[in-house]
């Protein structure tokens, strides 16, 4: 299994992860967003030329707007990498594809953090099942928005994921 940028050779229409919004995003929006440089989508495939998409992830840059306590400086923005989408095709679920995609995102976050400021990987889990997947790997919940999860870059760097 390898991770490559989404390209026209990939069969997006055949992809079905069981969640219509994630299928639709890949089929209709992922390439347009990449062309506009809003986000980047990478797909897991078995070989460089393989058209079948096992799973995909989409990331973009985000900021966390924090309220300082006490509010001397009322607001500050913390740069983070937003894991906007991560999905695995139905027939490939339970085979470690999701974990592989997640680790690929974390490795990319380390690479970005070596070039510019990046403090965390954040995401908004779509379902309870998705949320428990991320919690298993140590993602932390926001107290006031428990579906928003984050993992500090310092935690990720400790994993020693070699940039490739």
């Amino acid at each position, binding site marked *: 299994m390898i991770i490559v940028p989404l390209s026209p050779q990939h069969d997006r229409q055949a992809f079905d992860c069981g969640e219509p919004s994630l299928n639709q995003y890949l089929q209709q929006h992922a390439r347009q967003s990449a062309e506009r440089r809003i986000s980047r989508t990478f797909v897991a495939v078995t070989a460089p030329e393989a058209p079948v998409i096992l799973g995909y992830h989409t990331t973009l840059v985000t900021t966390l707007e924090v309220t300082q306590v006490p509010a001397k400086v009322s607001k500050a923005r913390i740069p983070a990498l937003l894991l906007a989408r991560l999905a695995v095709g139905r027939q490939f679920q339970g085979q470690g594809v999701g*974990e592989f995609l997640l680790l690929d995102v974390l490795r990319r976050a380390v690479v970005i953090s070596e070039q510019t400021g990046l403090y965390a990987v954040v995401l908004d889990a779509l379902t309870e099942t998705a949320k428990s997947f991320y919690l298993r790997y140590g993602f932390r919940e926001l107290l006031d928005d428990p579906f928003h999860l984050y993992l500090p870059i310092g935690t990720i760097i400790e994993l020693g994921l070699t940039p490739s």
Partner: protein
Amino acid sequence: MSVVKSKSVKKVTRRTATRRAAKEVSLAEIKLSARDSKRVLADLAAPPPPNEALKKAAARYKQHTAKKQS
């Protein structure tokens, strides 16, 4: 008439594209409450160590990518 129609179609297309882009960009702003701000800032200042599941996943990932490169 056809020129007007063509302009109108272009306008709609641009608007649709902008709306889609706006939808994506709106994902890129996460406002934290005061207590979440405190929690996140504390975590960023002193990041927790990775848990065992994440360490094991990282080990599997490294092994897999090393295999692919060799």
